């Protein structure tokens, strides 16, 4: 371990600025994926093991959209909406049939979706690593804050993801739709008896959850390699986030995502070989001290 380097970093403001900004950006991208996962679990009671694949498809769609239009905005919109549609299809055709089924059945059906999507992606785009690179229009000199470097594209990513998170919080907390979704998470039969079409509500919530994963995949495409199976690692990280934050809690997922993002960015200096392990250590500590997560009420 390079703990002395970590110590040097945290005592130099410039290094702290660079690592914190990187950590927050990584954390916010992770939050988009994890918030969709936790939303789907909280409302539908479904553990969506296919969530990472939605992220992967979002990245591929963005790559294709960017190739076709040269616009990163169009690419991101295509990734988000394309995956929302894909999620809607999966929910209507497959997952809506296993609500309330035991978790092994959910795992089986979701894993089938993972395998199918991995193969579809290989057939369409091939099995090789693809990379998109930061779009030309967003290649600008970095910001320098207190001597620390904040890449321009990272700053853009942070703003976009923060805006999406704010929109999500507003939608869930301040609209009739969001209040109805939260009521349905607690008592779906009563919500249905009041005349709310819960079948449609579930489909919409699932599509929104999938869209969040697709958007995160699209936004990450310029800074990560795009490859079949890319969904697995983000899925595991998202599960760690939802467990730390509390299954079903979006606020908890935000806090946990930022903790994991910062762990990643500082860990890459201080313990580069143990970054993944450290995430599990944090999860284990949280589970020991607060078994239902930072903001959780119901156990997974």
């Amino acid at each position, binding site marked *: 371990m390079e703990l002395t380097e970590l110590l040097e970093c945290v005592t130099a403001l410039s290094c702290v600025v660079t690592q914190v900004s990187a950590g927050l950006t990584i954390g916010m991208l992770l939050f988009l994926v994890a918030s969709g996962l936790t939303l789907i679990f909280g409302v539908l009671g479904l553990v969506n093991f296919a969530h990472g694949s939605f992220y992967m498809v979002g990245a591929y769609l963005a790559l294709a959209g960017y190739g076709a239009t040269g616009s990163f905005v169009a690419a991101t919109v295509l990734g988000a909406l394309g995956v929302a549609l894909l999620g809607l299809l999966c929910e209507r055709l497959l997952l809506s049939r296993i609500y309330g089924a035991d978790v092994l059945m959910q795992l089986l059906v979701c894993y089938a979706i993972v395998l199918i999507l991995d193969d579809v992606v290989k057939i369409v785009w091939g099995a090789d690593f693809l990379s998109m690179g930061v779009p030309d229009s967003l290649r600008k000199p970095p910001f320098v804050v207190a001597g620390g470097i904040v890449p321009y594209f990272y700053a853009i990513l942070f703003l976009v993801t923060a805006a999406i998170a704010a929109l999500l919080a507003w939608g869930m907390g301040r609209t*009739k739709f969001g209040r109805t979704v939260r009521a349905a998470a607690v008592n779906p039969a009563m919500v249905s008896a009041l005349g709310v079409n819960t079948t449609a509500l579930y489909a919409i919530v699932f599509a929104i959850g999938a869209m969040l994963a697709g958007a995160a995949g699209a936004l990450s495409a310029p800074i990560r390699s795009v490859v079949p199976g890319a969904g697995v690692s983000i899925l595991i990280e998202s599960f760690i986030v939802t467990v730390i934050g509390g299954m079903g809690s979006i606020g908890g997922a935000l806090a946990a995502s930022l903790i994991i993002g910062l762990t990643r960015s500082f860990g890459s200096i201080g313990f580069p070989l143990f970054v993944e392990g450290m995430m599990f250590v944090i999860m284990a500590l949280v589970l020991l001290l607060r078994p239902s997560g930072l903001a959780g009420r119901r156990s997974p």
Partner: protein
Amino acid sequence: MTAPELEVERLEAAYGASQVLFGVSLAVERGETLALMGRNGAGKSSTLKAIMGLLRPRAGRVMVRGREVTGLPPYRIARAGLGFVPEDRQVFPEHTVEENLEIAERAGVAGREWNARRAFEVLPLLAPLRKRLAGRLSGGEQQMLTIARSLMGNPAVMLLDEPSEGLAPLIVQQIAGLIRTLREMGTTIVLAEQNSRFCLAVATQVAVIDKGEIVWRGSVAQFRAEPEIQARYLQV
């Protein structure tokens, strides 16, 4: 002759392997308040749940204003014109009083007469509590909230399951007053109740259920004239 507001024909239902309803038939005309009376476990709540689609009927028919709704999901039955007030109230505890009403607000078969403002006029006790979390209300306040909440859907018929259960006598009187007010406004009501005094104070019609079957039907006046019915089916 127009169809009754709610008509139930030979309704059967079961929880798993144990059957609870063995052919329940009922009809409620517009403006009536029907009290469904019976002992604990006679099938009162199950009847309301089966009508509402919360307990899947095995046989029989449910018609709302002449339209068959048997076996539909609860939200479609609600939209056909039924409002449901469950036995254990089931307010949304982490939503405010106002938000509980908002979730249920929709144009119903009876038009768009009801909204939160009007509910607070009819239920003035709820008005000062509008920003309070429903989980923090007393039992009586929660009961009023669930009644108000089901009004928000502008139903043709309201189904009330044990509205007096577990409430202090003074609150029970208030709920009875509220039900009479609704009846005077022309609302059609079906009430499942164990408390006969409460029923006789608010109902116009009585149906007695025993072992999952309707064993007696008539007006409140006829019911009062037949004490042996009360003795046989209602007293423990």
